[in-house]
């Protein structure tokens, strides 16, 4: 299994090992992580939306939805940049954080894989409910990241801030996409 899987399953120990193994970042390594995330996003959305893949389709979808990674980067920046006690450079911290992608990557890849193998889509309700798993899992990963990489004594607070920024920005896009905040409130029954 990859270090990414180890990190997802044993986040505290693995973040510790990875941070100690190398404290400075590499642009190429971070670019590779982002490219993998874009490939996962573009391919899974292409199959869900068009039942096929091609270079043009996957690249265009990946470029369109790359703002999702920008939101991730912004939320991470809010907790990484002010962390003075962190034991790695800022670049390495981003690299390590983007290595914590396994929960969301599986959430993106498994429903289209089921669709390709079985020929039936996983229902939207199931996919949305299943999103609770990577949401909670990633919050746990952030807590370990805050402790072991950022060396924060208030890891719970860092996690809350990160999640608030991440989901706040995500909700702003959702409000734009579905017709305004009024609709968002209506969807949650307010």
């Amino acid at each position, binding site marked *: 299994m990859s270090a990414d899987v180890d990190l997802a399953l044993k986040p505290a120990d693995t973040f510790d090992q990875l941070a100690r193994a190398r404290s400075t970042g590499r642009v190429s390594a971070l670019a590779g992580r982002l490219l993998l995330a874009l490939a996962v996003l573009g391919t899974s959305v292409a199959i869900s939306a068009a039942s*096929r893949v091609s*270079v043009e389709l996957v690249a265009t979808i990946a470029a369109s939805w790359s703002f999702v990674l920008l939101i991730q980067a912004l939320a991470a920046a809010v907790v990484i940049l002010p962390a003075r006690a962190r034991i790695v450079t800022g670049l390495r911290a981003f690299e390590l954080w983007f290595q914590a992608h396994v929960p969301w990557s599986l959430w993106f890849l498994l429903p289209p894989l089921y669709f390709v193998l079985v020929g039936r889509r996983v229902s939207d309700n199931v996919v949305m409910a299943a999103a609770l798993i990577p949401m909670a899992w990633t919050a746990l990963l952030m807590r370990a990241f805050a402790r072991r990489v950022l060396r924060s004594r208030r890891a719970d607070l860092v996690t809350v801030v990160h999640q608030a920024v991440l989901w706040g920005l995500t909700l702003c896009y959702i409000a734009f*996409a579905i017709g305004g905040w*009024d609709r968002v409130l209506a969807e949650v029954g307010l």
Partner: protein
Amino acid sequence: MSRVPWAAAAVVAASLAAGSLAPRAPLHEPVRAGADWILAVDFHVHGFPGDGALAPWLLRDEAARAGLDAFVLTNHNRVSTARRARRLSAGTPGPIVIVGQEITARGFHIAAAGIEERVAWTHGAAAAIRAVHAEGGVAIAAHPSRDYWQGWDDESVALLDGYERAHPSMRRPEDGADFAIFATRAAALHPDIATIGSSDYHTGLLPGICRTLVLAHERSAAGVIAAVRAGRTVAMDMDGRIYGNDDVARLVREAHVPPPVRRPFTLWSRLPAGAALVGLLLLVLL
């Protein structure tokens, strides 16, 4: 570095390349009915940016693959994506792109087609429909199941140009029953109202999986809008069942218009898609 990630990356790249070699969909030729055209139109499609997955030019490509002659891009409470889609499509062969908006409010949703500017959604259904008419467009009640009945009083239903009679949510029996109740009410208040079939495409299924067959005097956006206004449409659901105007329905049956394509995969699409996903899973896990 292990060879596995490189091999997995090569599988992904090769799969995408193989998918790109798949034959392109032939351009769809609409059916003639005497001097008129029977155009396959989807009046309710979402694109990116918005809550649809696909950028406008990809959406048009998918609409062509689905055998549509035209589609209306109806993002929630905005027209900017639709206008961009129309501009990008100008002068190139493929489905006609019609600017629209899903007027999204508490109690009602309206698929507006043939408009140019965003319509306000905060003043009630009747005001929204009048605004659509003032722009030269048509207003269609979107997915009129009981969750969306609250905003429909008799005045606003009578003002409508059409209502969605075929929609993917009809697979749920309770929604199908609600659509039928709304159809009875709409026909009583506006006997010539157009019946519309729409996919409400965001990510899943396909554009045109439910569609409208429009008997148009001309093969253009204006021809489509005029036909809806005159009630010269029928709705076709996912199984090819037809709802609406008897005369148009007869012409459609005589012309043997094919039902929507439901099978999502061909050999050319399934193999590259599956291989790309397996390659990515290997990259993630190994």
